[in-house]
């Protein structure tokens, strides 16, 4: 009957504690949302949600006792989700700055020209541009 690969049975206390923690954290997140803390509200709500998610992942899903390869799959995925969020939000939240500083772009040494103006585009034109940039900077 007993096999050398006997499945590990997660002790009951972990499930019960996780349930209680999740219920308490749900009440906390609802209670905090009733108070207006301005921009802080969303950060608190997300922080609490992440703690809840960690409880579900580590104990209900049993990742705490799971094989390393499954952990790599999960945490690798979460890393990419993080990259996805950081890059998209960094883009969207800083676009206003690009538009407003357009008028301040006056001190650029080699401004980008439309292709039609220079005639050719390719290796030779790149050389020409970098040369003119070099000469203008060395003439100072």
């Amino acid at each position, binding site marked *: 009957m007993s096999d050398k690969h006997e499945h590990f049975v997660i002790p009951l206390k972990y499930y019960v504690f996780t349930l209680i923690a999740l219920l308490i954290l749900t009440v906390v997140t609802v209670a905090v949302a009733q108070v207006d803390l301005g921009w802080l509200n969303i950060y608190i*709500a997300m922080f609490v949600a992440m703690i809840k998610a960690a409880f579900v992942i580590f*104990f209900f899903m049993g990742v705490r006792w799971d094989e390393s390869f499954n952990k790599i799959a999960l945490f690798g995925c979460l890393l990419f989700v993080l990259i996805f969020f950081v890059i998209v939000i960094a883009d969207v*939240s800083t676009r206003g700055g690009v538009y407003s500083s357009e008028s301040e772009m006056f001190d650029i040494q080699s401004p980008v020209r439309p292709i039609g103006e220079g005639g050719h585009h390719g290796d030779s034109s790149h050389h020409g541009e970098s040369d003119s940039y070099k000469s203008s900077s060395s003439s100072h």
Partner: protein
Amino acid sequence: MSQSDNSTVAHHFEHAHQQFSAAKLGMWLFIVQEILFFSALFVAYAVYRGLHPEMFIDAHHHLSWKMGGTNTLVLIISSFTMAMSIRAAQLNQRMASFWYLFTTLLCACMFMVIKFFEYAEKIHHGYLPSFWFSGEGVYETMHIFFGIYFTMTGLHGLHVLVGMGLIIWLMIETYKGRYNSEYFTPVEMVGLYWHLVDLIWIFLFPLLYLIG
């Protein structure tokens, strides 16, 4: 016992444990894919909220946080009973496993009933997404919020429905005595799926119902 072992281990696996590990890795890859696919929707939410912050805060007052909160509690309890059902299967407690699954199913039904009343109210106010939007509010961009609301909760609801089907199947199989401490792979896998459904709701609830 080796007799039942042989009947459940496919010929390309060395032993039951290897088969179980392979199945679990496959399930994790599926779950990881689900997280990535939902993350695109969360990013869409973040982008549109960044573009229309006041509209989002105004629009979310049309959602009832009491209904959303009740659904959160229901899903958390169902996640717990699902975990307990796996545990019971691991300990050869067949009927306990069955009744835990039954409770999970009951919670899922409750979730869907509450969701139904929520949707009915939104549809009554004309908040359906895209062309069907006919609601009126302070902001004329309000259809964006409800587009995101219906897409995210709709896809989540679809996952709950699929989960309910899987749980019914598990209940039938458990009742027939298919699962025991040696073989409970389907219970474990559906359990992982069900926790994922809970996980997504944990983020949906504060983002849609509690902002501002």
